[in-house]
Each structure stands twice: as structure tokens, then as C-alpha cells.
């Protein structure tokens, strides 16, 4: 894990989570998933969330990304209290503020790499020409400008994940959320993807929240948080290898 940045600005955190509670219902039973979580994530920070399966880390990621509703507590992202948003307002907010990277890439198989990256731009007022320029920039950033006409099935796993990263950044979102981004990749592709995420954070100042089981991925993050049984702790509970 990289050292926590010492030179982070003293601006308010881009993500501020306060006393967050979330539970799921199974029949008449209420199963607590997250218990009184509070967390600040600074702008430009790369935070990794780790923990055993079922610990609530993906749920926390979903709540930060506005994909799910909290039971109680507050989530402020870039000054906006997203827990107050209606479903429609949340959808509009996600389109402009959140970039998503999934474990299984989740590209649309009937669309080319170009079209997949263009997809989030369809919700903007950009002209076709402007969209094309944005997509070309995003694909060249992930070094796939020569694969823009390829369909996902014609790309390797690592290439698909890079297309997914281009799709996540093409709208220039406030935060990037990544759920096990290296979980389905071989070691070398995983390293490529992590390097790319590191660059997005380091060079472009993107705030990244990543859920991972992979200690090598966690090593790239500035901050590591650990979730167990819905409780968030700072202390790293796992051994993180120095070498990949």
C-alpha cells in the first residue's frame, strides 16, 4: 500500500459518510449489513475497501455510488446530500458524477468499444462530433484507439476492462467506483489495469473508491479500509505483498 498522501489539500472531503446504517430484509427478518459507518474520502484519494465476502463492502460502494438507498445516515458527495435524492435525481446525478468499473467489465456485447464508451455521453447534450472526440480521447488514454471498432467478444479480458475504464472516465466524473476491477483478470492484465487506475488518480486527480479482495490491488491504493460484519476499521487486517 502506498503511503497516505501527506499533501492532500485541506478542502472538505469529496465524500463524507456519517453514521451510515443499512440492512436488508429477508421475509420478516432484518439483516444488518452496515452499522454506523463514518468515513471521509478526500479529493484525489485512492481508497481500497477490503474485507471478507458478505462484510458489506460492495453495499457500501453501491451506497456511495448512489445505486442503493440508505436506512439512515448521510452521504455527501461533492457537497450534495445524495440520500435525499429521488430515484430519478440519483440516476441523473450518477450520469454526471460517478464512473463505474465492474469486475466482469459489464460492457454491452452488441456495441463496439467505441459505442460502449460513447454510451454515458448519450445522456449529455454533446454533439455527435464532440462525443466522438471525447470517446477518442478516452480510448487513447487506455491505449485502445486502434480497437474502437471491435466488439467486446473480440477483446481480451484486460482490453475489455480498459474499455470499461474509458467508459467510466469519458464523462469526467467526480468519483470512480471500482468493484473488484482485477477480480477476473490474469496477473499481467491486472497490473495494467491497476497502473491505469493509479495514473487516473495520480495524473488526473480522480477520486477512486475500490472494493477488492486482491492484496496487490490494495497495494496501489493510498488508503486501505477494512470492513468486517458491517463495521469499518482502519487497521489493515491482511498481509499485503510488496512484490507483484
Amino acid at each position, binding site marked *: 500500500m502506498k503511503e497516505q498522501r501527506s499533501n492532500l489539500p485541506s478542502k472538505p472531503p469529496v465524500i463524507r459518510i456519517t453514521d451510515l446504517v443499512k440492512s*436488508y430484509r429477508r421475509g420478516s427478518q432484518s439483516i444488518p449489513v452496515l452499522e454506523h459507518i463514518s468515513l471521509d474520502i478526500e479529493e484525489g484519494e485512492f481508497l481500497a475497501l477490503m474485507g471478507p*465476502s458478505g462484510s458489506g463492502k460492495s453495499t457500501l460502494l453501491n451506497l456511495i455510488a448512489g*445505486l442503493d438507498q440508505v436506512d439512515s445516515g448521510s452521504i455527501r458527495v461533492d457537497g450534495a446530500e445524495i440520500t435525499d435524492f429521488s430515484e430519478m435525481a440519483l*440516476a441523473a446525478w450518477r*450520469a454526471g458524477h460517478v464512473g463505474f468499473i465492474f469486475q466482469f467489465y*459489464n460492457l454491452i456485447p*452488441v456495441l463496439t468499444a467505441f459505442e460502449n464508451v460513447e*454510451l454515458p455521453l448519450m445522456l449529455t447534450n454533446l454533439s455527435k462530433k464532440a462525443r466522438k472526440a471525447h470517446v477518442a480521447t478516452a480510448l487513447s488514454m487506455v491505449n485502445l484507439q486502434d480497437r474502437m471498432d471491435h466488439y467486446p467478444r473480440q477483446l481480451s479480458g484486460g482490453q475489455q476492462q480498459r474499455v470499461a475504464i474509458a467508459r467510466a472516465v469519458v464523462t469526467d466524473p467526480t468519483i470512480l467506483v471500482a468493484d473488484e476491477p482485477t477480480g477476473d483478470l490474469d496477473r499481467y492484465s491486472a497490473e495494467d489495469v491497476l497502473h491505469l487506475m493509479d495514473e487516473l488518480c495520480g495524473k488526473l486527480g480522480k477520486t477512486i473508491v475500490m*472494493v477488492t479482495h486482491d492484496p496487490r490491488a490494495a497495494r496501489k491504493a493510498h488508503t486501505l479500509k477494512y470492513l468486517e460484519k458491517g463495521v469499518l476499521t482502519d487497521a489493515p487486517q491482511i498481509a499485503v505483498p510488496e512484490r507483484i
Partner: protein
Amino acid sequence: MLLKLLFRNAFRHRLRTLLTIGGIAVAILAFGLLRTVISAWYAGVDASSASRLVTRNAISLIFPLPLSYKEKIRSVDGVRLVSYGNWFGGVYIDEKNFFANFAVEPGSYFSLYSEFLLSDDESAAFFRERKACVAGRKLARRFGWKIGDTIPLRGTIFPGNWNFVLRGIYQGKDKTIDENQFFFHWEYLNETLRKTMPRRADQVGFYMIGLKRPDQAAATAEAVDGLFRNSYAETLTETEKAFQMSFVSMSEAIITVILLVSYVIIVIIMAVVANTMAMSVRERMGEYAVFKTLGFGRGYLAALIIGESLTLTALGGLLGIGLTFPTARAFGRAVGQFFPVFRVSADTILLDVAAAAIVGVVAAVIPVWRIVQVRIAEGLGRIG
């Protein structure tokens, strides 16, 4: 992008899509054919003129009226022309060769039925010769009759063997006109009856009345029937349309069954398309969750699913409509003796289009509802 997506989605499973389109095409074809059968049943009603009345015996059509009524009817205000005739019911060689054949007063009858087009030469030849007859174009084609041929009919209502000489072949003014009828001189029938069955002579089966103005139909009918009230042969006068409807209404139960079957076909194909769409949407639940994640709203997803469903039904519907025309032509040839006018109408095509559109939208309702309801996290399958 929306159009591109829904077309590509529609053809993602080509075999499934082609089978579904094939199913829709067959259903639309069957629906179109059944609707055409119903239209054919009503062809006589549709082709009837608002300016013609039919007068028959008030007891039943099988009872005749005296020929002497003709002049009395002609004297009624609003009557332009009077013709008359008898249903002859003759059999050509074999009973399976059924066609409608009438003994009519030719001059007045063909004046009233201006939609039967006969050349001047053929008209003159027909009017001149008492044993002459005319046949519709389709009827002549069916039996290979040519001008000058002798056509023998075996009488059923009027016993005996009757021979006629074909002097004319009429054409309909348009495609809705029945070209399967056969006409000959009423006078020939009457003269023969005077010799063989004098008691049945000088009687007609019906009068056809040409009106000066169609809006006088009710008053004229009332006036005609009033003339013969309390006589030994009271009349019933009605518009030609109402007269034709009285025949159609005898088959109302069959028509209702055909109508119901046509709707059942649509319901069945609706279930088939709904099943296809449900399978497709279930398989792509994760993709729709991605769309939701990226910020696409319910409306966009609904448009995507309904659009895909409509694409399937539009393609199947077009194929079905395209097949309806040749199939209806073949069907019409096979059952020409029962349905003289068997053609696919514009209304039937509109109903086909409406049925395809309704199937497309209704089949997408449950998949859309499912997608709208599903939580993103559930769709992505990643609650952890």
C-alpha cells in the same frame, strides 16, 4: 444509438428471433385470412346500393308475389324504376357446381345494376334472344364457357331441363362486385311455366326498386308495403343492404366463432412474443442494470424493450401481411363458389397492423415492469 441497440438486441439470438418472427407471420396471416372470410361474408352487404329496395313476400322469400304488383309499385312516389326476378336454383351438371342463377327482366334489371358491365353488342344479343343468358366473368372462367355455348341447367324449384345460350359475360365495375352470377330472361321461365305449371305463372320471387333519391328509402318502402297491406300477398320492402343482411344474420353464429378464433390467435401469439421478450430480458438483466447504473432512466429502458418487441412484431407482421395476399388469392380460387368476392381489404390490413402493434406493446409490458422494478444491485448480481 437506441435504434441500433434495439435492432442488434432483436437479432442477438437469430434462431429464436426468426422462429418468433415466423410465428407472428403465421398468426397475422391466419388473422388476416379469417378477417377476409368475414369480409367475404359481408361482401353482398357492402356491395349493395343505397338507392335500391327489395320487395318480397312478407311471409317468406319462398312465397311469390303477383306480377301485377309491378305497375302499382311503379306508381309510388319516389320510385324511379322497377325490376323483378326469381331465384331459379338450377344445377349445372352436378350439385357441387353451385352458383347463383336468376330469372330476371333483363332491361330493367341491368339498368338497376349498372355495376354489372356488359358490352353494347352483348347486351343487344342478350336482350334480343329469349333463351339467352349472361354469366359473370369468374363464373365463365370457372367452367370454361365461351360466348355462344349452350349451358344446360337442371331445374330444382322449376323442374325440367333448361338450356340457355351464353350471349354475354359481364364484368364487375370494381373488385367488390360478384362476378359469379348467372342471369336469363324471366319471360322464358314464365312462358314455360304457363305451359307446364300455369298455377305458378305470372308470379315473381322479388321486386327490385330503383329510387329517385336514396334518402327516400324509408318512406318509399313504407308506401309500397302500404299498397298491399291486408291483401292475400302482403309485401316486405327493405333496403338492399338490409335484405342482404338478413341472409348474413342466418350465419351469425359461424361468423362469431370465426371472429373469436381470430382473436384467440392474436392472444396466443401475444403469449409467444411475451415469452420471447421475457427470456431475452431475463438474460440481459445485468446489461439493463448497467444502463441504470450509467444513469439511463426507466423511459429509455422501456423504449429499448418495447422497441425490440415492436421490431419483432413489425417484421413478423409485414411478412404475414405479404403472405396474406397470395394465400387469399389461392383460398379465394378454392372457395369461389361460396365466397364470390374474396379479397383482402384495406380494413383487414389496418387490423393486421393494429394487431401486430398491440401484440408488440402488450408482450413487452411484463418485461418492462420487471426491469423497472429490479434494484440495480440485484441486477448486477453483486450484493456483497
